[in-house]
């Protein structure tokens, strides 16, 4: 038996020994965070680019607001989403509160400003460099957006990873709108926050280890992408 297999077996038995619900918690966390960050990217990239190239009244204000929202406290975001989704709120009819969907919305709200703000900065810098060239080749500002987004792809992946870092680490927002319901809305961070005090230390430690590994993986990936980007950027 080689080392890798041994390690895998050990980890697997450890997980089973710690808590049968362990894997479920990890999967829910990943599903919520990846969906939220994915959607934030789909919306945030074009929005950030539009903010970079657009010329409309209120643009400066919008940029300041977006930048400010990067530092939005997760509990405040959670509270806002809670009010919107609560039964008497405007979107109460969707019945999303205390579901994974609500957590996705909350993390989407948290991550979107980061992606919009970082994308705007990246695309604006790139536009300075590309402007004359693209204009000469026949692109107007609108047509330049997809070109710029593609040429900024390595920076934008890093932006996405920054969003992933924020979303996977936060607990305040998803705790408020998700409720830490076992097997349904219990995630790594909410479990650690609430189960530690109830004495389930092994679960908390195991989840903490997974979270740390995830953080390392995200940063490793970010580094690899920036290296790849440097190759194309010359």
């Amino acid at each position: 038996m080689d080392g890798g297999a041994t390690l895998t077996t050990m980890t697997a038995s450890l997980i089973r020994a710690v808590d049968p619900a362990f894997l479920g918690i990890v999967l829910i966390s990943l599903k919520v965070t990846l969906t939220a960050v994915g959607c934030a990217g789909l919306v945030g990239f074009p929005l950030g680019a539009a903010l970079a190239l657009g010329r409309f009244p209120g643009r400066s204000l919008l940029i300041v607001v977006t930048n400010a929202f990067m530092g939005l406290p997760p509990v405040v975001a959670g509270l806002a989403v809670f009010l919107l989704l609560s039964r008497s709120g405007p979107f109460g009819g969707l019945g999303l509160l205390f579901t994974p969907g609500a957590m996705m919305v909350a993390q989407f709200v948290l991550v979107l400003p980061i992606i919009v703000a970082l994308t705007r900065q990246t695309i604006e810098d790139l536009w300075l460099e590309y402007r004359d060239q693209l204009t000469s080749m026949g692109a107007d500002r609108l047509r330049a957006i997809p070109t710029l987004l593609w040429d900024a792809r390595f920076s934008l992946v890093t932006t996405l990873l920054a969003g992933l870092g924020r979303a996977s680490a936060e607990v305040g927002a998803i705790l408020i709108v998700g409720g830490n319901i076992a097997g349904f809305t219990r995630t790594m961070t909410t479990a650690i926050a609430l189960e530690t005090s109830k004495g389930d230390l092994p679960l908390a430690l195991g989840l903490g280890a997974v979270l740390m590994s995830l953080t390392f993986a995200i940063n490793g990936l970010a580094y690899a992408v920036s290296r790849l980007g440097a190759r194309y950027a010359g």
Partner: protein
Amino acid sequence: MRETTSILPLTLADVTWAVDGRTLLTVAAAEIHKGRRTVVLGPNGAGKTLFLKLCHGLIRPTAGRVAFSGSGGDARAPKRHAMVFQKPVMLRRSVQGNLRHALGLAGVGFFDRRRQVPAILAEFGLAELAGRPARVLSGGEQQRLAIARAAAVRPELLFLDEPASALDPTATRQIEELLLRLHGEGLTWVMTTHDLAQARRLADDVLFFHGGRLLEAAPAATFFTAPRTEEARAFLESRLFW
């Protein structure tokens, strides 16, 4: 077949370009003629780049008229002139990605792009480099790609801003040969240079700039043998003050 009417001659009349009330370029009258190799000559800071940008439409004249003939005057018609910048921006893509994108922006469809790119790569000696990231190419290779990318859309007129100023003598000769070949195939071009020897090698017509003014516009033979202004005489004798 796609040749309709020519956009040439290009005519400039009483053109000025000013920033904050400071006039940086003055062109009383100039014409770019079809089939003529026009060299825009002058020392650094003379206004050569500004002149190209004005002609290409990247900046608008503060006063005066920059007018193409025929459909060239129609802003809605596809642009029939292209430009190679002094520092061409290589897109963060492969060599063929750069060509495809230029064709795409010029309105060439997806399948036509796929079909045309290999021929363009071969034509400009870039076939070996097709998959290479454009930004890691050497200076000479980048310049060749920049010219290929601009010529790929089959413009009638090509502006080139100091296309060889950053190149070694071998790469410079390659670029000059390329430009002569393109001219032989019917492309009209206008290039700037501060290199007198290069101007002598390439020019049919000379536009001589100094201090932000077009001082002389003449056939090369006339300009080099009988310059009319003191500035041009000084430049030709390489004793020009800035």
